């Protein structure tokens, strides 16, 4: 019997895709190239574009050649090659035949680069967004992680390491649900 179950990607896209990228009619070439690169998602975080995630660092257009610069979240992120491939495809599909994708390590990626809209989308998707690595004032210390399901701050860490390098596993004491927390980095 043929399964009618949607694929994981289809299911996710139906619920909540990345934010649509609007390209104005009078956009310049580099703006169109950037918009195309911005449509690419991290396959393990299908609600965030690489622009929201801070992985997309730069897009340039010189003599018809588009150079896209990306940076990995973690050194061993296994999704980088997929992201590089998807970026090249997306920019080519926007009409640029010659696309180069550079991966840089420096400056090192930080969760502070995740956009505010990206944080909101993460929480809607069920992943608690990072609480921020920048010092907030004279008092240092981690902020409470808010449950993305019931908004309670009464949560606890189950494991420092979760389903991917960038997440930790949490559980909510109020609603009892486990959830992923995007670790501050």
């Amino acid at each position, binding site marked *: 019997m043929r399964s009618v179950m949607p694929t994981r990607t289809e299911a996710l896209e139906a619920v909540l895709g990345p934010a649509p990228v609007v390209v104005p009619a009078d956009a310049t070439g580099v703006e169109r190239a950037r918009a195309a690169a911005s449509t690419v998602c991290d396959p393990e975080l299908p609600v965030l574009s690489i622009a929201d995630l801070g992985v997309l660092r730069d897009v340039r257009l010189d003599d018809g050649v588009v150079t896209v610069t990306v940076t990995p979240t*973690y050194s*061993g992120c296994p999704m980088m090659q*997929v992201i590089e491939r998807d970026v090249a495809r997306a920019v080519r599909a926007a009409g640029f035949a010659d696309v180069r994708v550079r*991966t840089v*390590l*420096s400056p*090192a990626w930080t969760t502070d680069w995740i956009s505010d809209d990206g944080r909101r989308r993460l929480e809607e998707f069920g992943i608690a967004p990072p609480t921020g690595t920048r010092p907030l004032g004279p008092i240092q210390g981690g902020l409470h992680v808010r449950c993305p399901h019931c908004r309670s701050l009464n949560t606890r860490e189950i494991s*420092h390491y979760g389903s991917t*390098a960038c997440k930790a596993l949490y559980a909510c004491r109020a609603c009892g649900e486990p959830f992923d927390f995007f670790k501050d980095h």
Partner: protein
Amino acid sequence: MTGTRSHAVRAVHISVDEVELAAELAGDEGRTAAPDIAEYALWLGDDALILAQQLGAWIAHAPELEEDVALANIALDLLGHARSLLRYAGTADGRTEDDLAYFRDEPDFRCAWLFEQPNGDFAHTIARQLAASTYLSVLYERLQHSSDPVLAAVAGKAVKEVAYHRDHAVQWTLRLAGGTDESRRRMITAIDDVWPYVDELFGDEPLIDRVGDAAVRPSTLRAPFDELVAPVLAESELEAPTRFTASGGGRRGAHFPTLGYLLAEMQVLARAHPGATW
């Protein structure tokens, strides 16, 4: 995957799609490592590669599911460091990261003996992680200011990741040492077995004089290492054993007997099917 399905593997070269390996992992377009810098990158890259391979063996064998995940994530970070470092090392003589990982024999590896110590029981792995992650923390903290931009970039990224690794090792050291009589006995034995291999990490080989500010002089890392480890051992009511110091020699290609077996397992597929992709 390709559209066709088959009951037997028909070809060695299996291509999923057009994924191309990143040519410029370190963002160092066209930058070629000088031979001495390449040798130093090989030290650090081999340390990370061998430790990653060792930790990977815990997947599905750790004491609890969360530990399978934690050790796999730590291994993945280390593999990321190894790839960047080996790729850079390879620029000196035109070898790729895969050439270096899969097609060198034991005497050509430059890892220190600590990283070659067997996984042992979980306490042994944690003791090795405590020493390794503390050493890597103090090393990358300094190396991010290296005069070599590629080494500095790799270290600047790695320093944040190894901080998590150290936290993991510290938490487990405290938990095992303060747990049951059995867990404490095992932790004491593990520290006793692993600690003789710590000294080698801080040996200044002649290479260090030649690479200058690009590298961190290993002997200068001993004090910060001890400063970080001492409170952990004190809180665990453990003592750093001083019964003997292993001769070491990994930086010169002399290795602990475990390395050959590890390489055999790690390299067999690449050597049986050179150039295979999937």
